[in-house]
């Protein structure tokens, strides 16, 4: 690899500029225990969590709170320990999955029951504020063709379909509402599980449309469900618990000012808003989460 001297010098200048422009060591910024006046907001996986995190961030910043962010955490299994060790302070989470995560034996499935069960189940040092009516939960989807051919409109109908493949994030294999629940609650056996690490995103959809899988776990606020005319299977046994957006925060950082701000956001946020913002984030324009957050806050008069 031989480069001319000129380009090498340019590169050297660029690198020097890069190191000074960021003002020291950016890796330190991420890991240092947050100073008491700084709140670190995390977000797990999907774009939606990051959009909501951005909404929290901008609203709190407008109140004068200093914010750092830590997005792109892979799973709740990583995020909750991160909250406990202080790597992050605040996380937009989903009520049902949070509950089953902190209490494996939890049985609540309705929005109100789940929210009521949470405070007691949370580990010491963590608490939640009010849940939002906005909800985004796992849902099992099939193509219209598959639904028509096999007469499947509900999860219960899957019991009579032999040898289908189900695509979802790897953790679906272990979670109570996942494969174990399908076997125990609905008596469905012989499911071929296909782990796809994209949170019911484009690869899961493509696999479903290509018939690599016949059933796909896709979050209800994902625009691809309606765009592709998918049939979302009914859940008569309420296997899949309610998943309302709920702010999960370290008690040490939970002030009334923060609580008031987040409660206002939760009250104003709707499921339709989530579908709309997800559509813009993933659609042709790929609008960034911070832009969407700003638009939403402005539209709801919350800034």
């Amino acid at each position, binding site marked *: *690899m*031989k480069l001319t001297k000129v380009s090498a010098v340019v590169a050297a200048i660029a690198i020097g500029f890069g190191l000074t422009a960021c003002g020291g060591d950016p890796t330190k910024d991420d890991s240092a225990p947050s100073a008491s006046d700084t709140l670190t907001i995390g977000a797990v996986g999907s774009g939606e969590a990051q959009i909501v995190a951005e909404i929290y961030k901008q609203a709190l910043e407008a109140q004068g709170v200093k914010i750092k962010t830590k997005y792109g955490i*892979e*799973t709740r*299994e*990583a995020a909750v*320990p991160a909250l406990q060790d202080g790597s992050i302070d605040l996380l937009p989470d989903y009520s049902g999955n949070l509950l089953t995560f902190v209490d494996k034996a939890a049985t609540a499935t309705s929005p109100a029951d789940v929210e009521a069960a949470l405070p007691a189940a949370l580990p010491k040092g963590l608490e939640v504020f009010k849940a939002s009516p906005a909800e985004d939960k796992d849902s099992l989807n099939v193509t219209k063709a598959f639904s028509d051919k096999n007469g499947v409109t509900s999860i219960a109908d899957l019991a009579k379909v032999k040898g289908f493949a189900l*695509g979802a*994030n*790897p*953790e679906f*294999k*272990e979670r109570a509402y996942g494969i174990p629940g399908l076997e125990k609650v609905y008596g469905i056996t012989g499911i071929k599980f*296909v*782990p*796809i*690490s994209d949170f019911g995103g*484009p*690869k899961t959809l*493509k*696999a479903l449309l*290509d018939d*690599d899988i016949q059933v796909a776990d896709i979050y209800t606020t994902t625009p691809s469900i309606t765009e592709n005319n998918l049939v979302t299977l009914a859940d008569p046994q309420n296997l899949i618990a309610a998943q309302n957006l709920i702010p999960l925060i370290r008690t040490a950082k939970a002030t009334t000012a923060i609580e008031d701000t987040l409660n206002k956001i939760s009250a104003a946020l709707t499921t339709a808003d989530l579908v709309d913002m997800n559509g813009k984030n993933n659609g042709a324009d790929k609008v960034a989460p911070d832009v969407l957050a700003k638009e939403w806050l402005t539209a709801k008069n919350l800034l």
Partner: protein
Amino acid sequence: MSVASETVDWLTDSANWSGDEGIPHRLLEHVYYTGLAVGIAALVAVPLGLWIGHTGRFRNVAILVTGSMRALPTLGVLSLVAIYSGIGLTAPLVALIVLAIPPLLAGAYSGIESVDPRTVDAARAMGMTEWQVLLRVEVPLALPLLVGGVRSAVLQVVATATVAAYISLGGLGRYLIDGLAIRDYPQMLGGSVLVIGLALVLDGVFASIQHLALGERSRVEAARRT
């Protein structure tokens, strides 16, 4: 060290040793992906490398291309191809082939280059055709470095094939990605131990082949002298 003992439990649990998700099946898948990726990469890279080494043409281009290919991040290539190919073997295979080509190509051309030019001239003087020079003299003499290239390609692919599980692929990486998804440390560690074990075994195998190749090299050199 409870994690360590749980890992041992995981590795020795008979339930983990049977079925499609069992260790033997995952191990076979892993070896299959590795063999396939290195095999396809070798079909492209070895003849090309031999030709570059033999003719001395495009050597600088080859160095530049292998250098840039090494810099390509596997995760990026994997994610990019997967957008178009979806789940399945295509995306991981492309990413792993990209990974395997540079060491194979380099092993092939540097192997040929390592052959003493006087030996090659002598072979030509004996009236050998260019093909005979390549196949009977240069390749046997280049064998140790050639096998060295295969060896490092295999080792890199074995370790990196774990990342391929990110795009819904089997193999030992499954234990890492699935374990990561539910923070199951014993499963993750168990999977890692298996990958390391596989890598060590393969490394040993190729070390022996390299040893044999060195023997072959001295045999050819001896034959030339007599």
